[in-house]
């Protein structure tokens, strides 16, 4: 299968290790991964902050760059959700008929990583080995926009050596919310404090999720408090075949 990787602007800049992990994982499963160099951003930050018009060139670029692949995979629930739920609206409101049509073609091919693995490729055991205690935060957009359900957990449960611990109040938002963390920093902090406490309650070495943005938020709190708990994207655990992923 010819799969294009949409790394997302945030991962591209901050977490290339996640992109490398997705590539390694999919190639290990026998698929061809391509990385269109013309890709940039899905436009989520602009869209969700009220700058919809500014998101148009990003929607246009995404649609052109990712046309024609068997599947487009992205290691971000919220970016997948942006493409799936909002690209049509941006194209319809600010674009033209041609763009709207092109968006319709591309959107159904876009998958968040766990969706691609479980639904399209039909695997839950990806042959990973990760001998650590891990807890999983479902992230709001994976959970309630994409409705990935227990797909990530099914993938994690099949990882050899893993000690997967349930996160209390897992479905509560961590308080990130993109620019919310800056615009409403105090409320965001209060939410983060609860999430950090719940992570610590699990006694895990690692917190994982399908979105590095939420992990950066929670990880920022864990790091500031010198908790020693690491954060790792789901893809990096699934790609891991050796004892130490660090």
């Amino acid at each position, binding site marked *: 299968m010819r799969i294009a990787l949409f790394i997302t602007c945030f991962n591209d800049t901050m977490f290339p290790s996640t992109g490398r992990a997705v590539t390694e994982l999919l190639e290990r499963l026998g698929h061809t991964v391509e990385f269109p*160099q013309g890709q940039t951003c899905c436009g989520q930050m602009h869209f969700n902050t009220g700058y919809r018009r500014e998101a148009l060139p990003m929607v246009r670029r995404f649609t052109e760059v990712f046309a024609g692949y068997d599947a487009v995979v992205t290691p971000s629930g919220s970016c997948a959700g942006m493409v799936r739920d909002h690209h049509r609206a941006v194209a319809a409101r600010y674009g033209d008929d041609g763009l709207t049509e092109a968006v319709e073609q591309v959107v159904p091919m876009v998958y968040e990583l766990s969706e691609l693995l479980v639904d399209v490729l039909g695997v839950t055991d990806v042959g990973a080995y990760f001998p650590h205690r891990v807890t999983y935060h479902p992230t709001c957009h994976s959970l309630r926009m994409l409705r990935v359900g227990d797909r990530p957990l099914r993938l994690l449960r099949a990882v050899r050596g893993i000690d997967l611990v349930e996160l209390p109040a897992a479905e509560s938002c961590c308080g990130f919310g993109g620019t919310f963390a800056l615009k409403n920093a105090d*409320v965001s902090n209060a939410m983060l404090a609860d999430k950090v406490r719940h992570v610590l309650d699990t006694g895990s070495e690692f917190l994982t999720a399908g979105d590095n943005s939420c992990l950066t938020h929670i990880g920022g709190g864990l790091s500031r408090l010198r908790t020693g708990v690491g954060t790792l994207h789901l893809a990096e655990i699934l790609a891991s075949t050796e004892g130490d992923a660090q």
Partner: protein
Amino acid sequence: MSGADNVVWLGTPAFPEAARGALADTRLRANLRRATGTIRDKRLAVAAELEDWEELRETAAAIKRHTLRHLDHHLLRLEKAVTAAGGTVHWAADAAEANRIVTGLVEATGEGEVVKVKSMATQEIGLNEALAEAGIRAYETDLAELIVQLGGDRPSHILVPAIHRGRSEIREIFRRQMGQWGRPAPEGLTDDPRDLAEAARLHLREKFLRAKVAVSGANFAAADTGTVVVVESEGNGRMCLTLPETLITVMGIEKVLPSFADLDVFLQLLPRSSTGERMNPYTSLWTGVTEGDGPQDFHLVLLDNGRTATLADEVGRQALNCIRCSACLNVCPVYERTGGHAYGSVYPGPIGAVLTPQLVGVENAASLPFASTLCGACYDACPVKINIPEVLAHLRAEAVEAGRRDRLLPTTEALAMKAAAAVLSSPKRLATAQRIAALGARLVARDGRIGFLPGPLARWSATRDAPAPARESMRAWWRRTRTTRRDESRTTAEGKEAR
């Protein structure tokens, strides 16, 4: 007095500032956490009992959507049916007109006091204050509204306006204030909720028995029969709807349902969503006037007050589906931490954040659409499937547009967003920015973490570390490590890089 002045409380700071104060109040946070936690579990349990819950939600949303698209038609049907059943229908374009109508109706009875059933609509128009100006005393009879009224306070929750008060605070309010309004609190009042409820029973009983005029809201009204519905728990509603001679009901125009038969859907959804009960203790339905039973003079005031403006927005109009169950407040992680007062509106929480800016104009409540992480818990809980995150994001765009109209110069944020859009629309500019960021990070990061960020980003780094940008971006790594053989397939994409 305009409607906007009452829906939003003048003088309340923007949400982030108001929230800061609320967050510092540890007692408030404990009260809210306990109350919302209790109700969440109850709601989930009773919703799960109905295997067709999701279908019920779909049906309810469909009924509301359909009704709103022909709202004029259904309101005229309702007017006809209520009139035929012996009631009188009034129309009020705004709060001032509604208050004038109600005040006039009370004055015509010659009475100087009214008893009130809890009603968001009368709260929204500031009816109690308008009546007071005319020398008419309005007694709130719902327990939570009584707590708010006696405490000289503001409501902070749609269903439980005094949710921010714990039992010991309520006892203090009763002990200090009940005597000013009528029968004082019993000697030795404890903070046992049973005792507090008993005190309210005794205090209000004499008012119910002597009341000649009542004012209520309405949960629903059926256009085919003219039947009006009030859903309640304590029996104060039944007292007000049954014992007085005159009943005045103020109802938002969006509350109409096409038919009596539609009630089956909503009477299943509302109690389970709001108090987490299979059914609330009392639901009263009445159609006009019944000879020999209940008020013989019935007035229905249909209130617009910003609703038609909301209706005009094809995305935002779904906020008018709201049946005021407050499930969205109870599941909202932001509301749970700030409480209702921070929203500065009669309508707090997620639904308030979409309803308030539409009722009063987004420029008058510009911080509310941003008072959410867009986590989506509200949408999942909403029994009428209002896509609150969708409307929030839509209103953010409206708020930004309104800001653009009102300013000669763009805001710092607008400039930053514009600059970011330029970078994020071009792979070349993005790659350049990534190289600069990686260089800059080497100067400030320690062990790959950054502990202090400049400008508005300092709000992040106050409590969180930030990761340093990678030394080599994904795109740079790919270019360096992957051979050109693979690149042949992406020539079309590559071509755009020249832009």
